[in-house]
């Protein structure tokens, strides 16, 4: 018999947690918009990505129920992110060290 999982074994959150997270997301959006006006130099994009990552983390864990899902799903997300991030890193191992690029 294959594994089964029916609705009784899987429940999600209450209404209020979603509203709370939503308020947090809006706050972070306002934050990132305001912060963009301030010049942090090279750090600016890092901060923007950090805030975006935090927002995504909230959507993933609360809205998408990753927090209450089986461990396998969390590993999956980690694997996908690993592939994405390592590709960025290796891509830049070429581009960051280029000696001159014709613009």
């Amino acid at each position, binding site marked *: *018999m*294959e*594994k089964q999982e029916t609705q009784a074994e899987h429940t999600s959150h209450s209404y209020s947690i979603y509203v709370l997270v939503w308020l947090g997301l809006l706050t972070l959006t306002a934050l990132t918009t305001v912060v963009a006006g301030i010049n942090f130099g090279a750090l600016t994009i890092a901060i923007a990505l950090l805030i975006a990552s935090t927002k995504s983390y909230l959507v993933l864990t609360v809205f998408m129920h990753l927090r209450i899902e089986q461990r*396998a799903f969390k590993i999956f997300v980690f*694997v*996908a992110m690993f*592939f994405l991030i*390592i*590709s960025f890193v*290796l*891509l830049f*191992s*070429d*581009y*960051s*060290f*280029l*000696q001159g*690029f014709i*613009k």
Partner: protein
Amino acid sequence: MSSEAVSVPLDSHSSYLDYTGKYKGLRAWIFSTDHKRIGILYLVALLSWFAIGVTLGFLIRLELFTPGKTIVDPQAYNSFFTLHGVIMLFLFVIPGLPAVFGNFFLPIMLGAKDVAFPRLNLLSWYLYMIGSLLVLLSIVLPGGAPDTGWTFYIPYSVRTSTNMIFALTAVFILGFSSILTGLNFLTTIHRMRAPGMGWFKMPLFAWSLYATGWIQILATPIIGITLLLVIFERVFHVGIFDPGLGGDPIMFQHMFWIYSHPAVYIMAVPAMGVISEILPVFAKRTIFGYKFIAFSSLAIAVFGSLVWAHHMFAVGMSDTGEFIFSLLTFLVAIPSAIKVFNWTATLYKGSITLDPPMLYALAAIFLFSIGGLSGIIQGTLSVDIQITDTAFIVGHIHYVVFGITGVGIFAALHYWLPKMIGRMYNHKVAKVAFWIFFVGFNILYFPMFVMGWLGMPRRYYDYLPQYTTYHQISTVGSWIMITGLIIMFYNLIKSVKYGEKVDAKAVWVYGETLEWTVPTPPPHENFDEIPAITDGPYEYKFNDEPILEEEES
């Protein structure tokens, strides 16, 4: 593995071939969501494309028999090698083992009645057929068959007036087909194993399909978007790749190879799984190092994602990048080598019978080892500057891809076709075909290493007279090899109607995985009752040798 107390009735059953449900005739096949029928549908389509791909290879080698024009003009030649690549890769070896044998046997091997998403499975096949149609259109429509090489490099893929949009869209759709197959298999393996079948009691072919599925899901979308961007470049001139508008052609190459290198592991890993299935049966010994082989499939998938730019060592990358990719390329050889060592150890002191499946499996190991070693040579940065884009690379890719995946498909056919259709081919003819094929293969491809080393470029229509002898040897090799292929396929196809009937469940007597416990051919739902699993796969109890691994408790 033994199934507990569950017996399948011995009365005459109707197999999946005889089953009639809602539809009749042809519609009963093309609307069927039965994973076994879908596997057969893929098999027919794939072998048809293989025949076309082989013909193109034959024509390429014929053209190269003499310098200058031999049979066609340069434009046609460029289209030949482009289509040869596109067809062999996207329509044969990438769908390859997963689409045919993964579909047919994965559920049975796991003790399931079908895959996780049967209708999605049928959609995968439909997408494959739509992709096929688009490739055909790209060949026959007035603009002319694509001539960029299967790698579609910028800027020529934007500038050429041939039917690029059809070809690019075809590959996009074929990619989607591949993705859905991988998605289906991953979910099937996670959720549909029979009770008692833990991860480490799963057959190694299933492990290989698991690792492959991850590559299919994560890497394929990258080529999807890359080719989509080329289409947008051609139609809307977005500038993202076009150097005239500020784009970087090297960026295209990066994005292209981020998929296309892992793609070779989509090709190779399932073939390695097939070898791991065949060796224990015909050596009558349990596989050596089951866990090492299982984990090495995953390791290949991981490491294989990190090495893509070794296809780009001569294009102008930074030294740092090249150094890093060369280092990573050496690392990716390790898990493959682990498999070869484990296979060898499996054979040691085994009671080996050289039935046709075994011949092909052994050939695959041999050919892949040669190809893999040549890969190490290529991974050496300083050497690759000389041999990249030469015939050396062409030799390498055929030894690895044809050598393990192509030969792996032949091995799988000789191993599993009798189970699929309930008829046995002629073994003597199969062996003769094998040897002709094997000898021809090496005569065809080995000279490429030599002439590439001596400077013969790849994809060149014309060449200097000093390479003529090598080309002619190689071309004659192609004739020998193709003769072997014709005999082999004639034998197999003839067996479909005229082969001796096979009734035994365990067609090869010593098969221990679940497909050898169901009737031949399998019934519509595979199992009357899902078996309960107690043992691991490949545990042979009739020789006195102790099992080399710890018993699974």
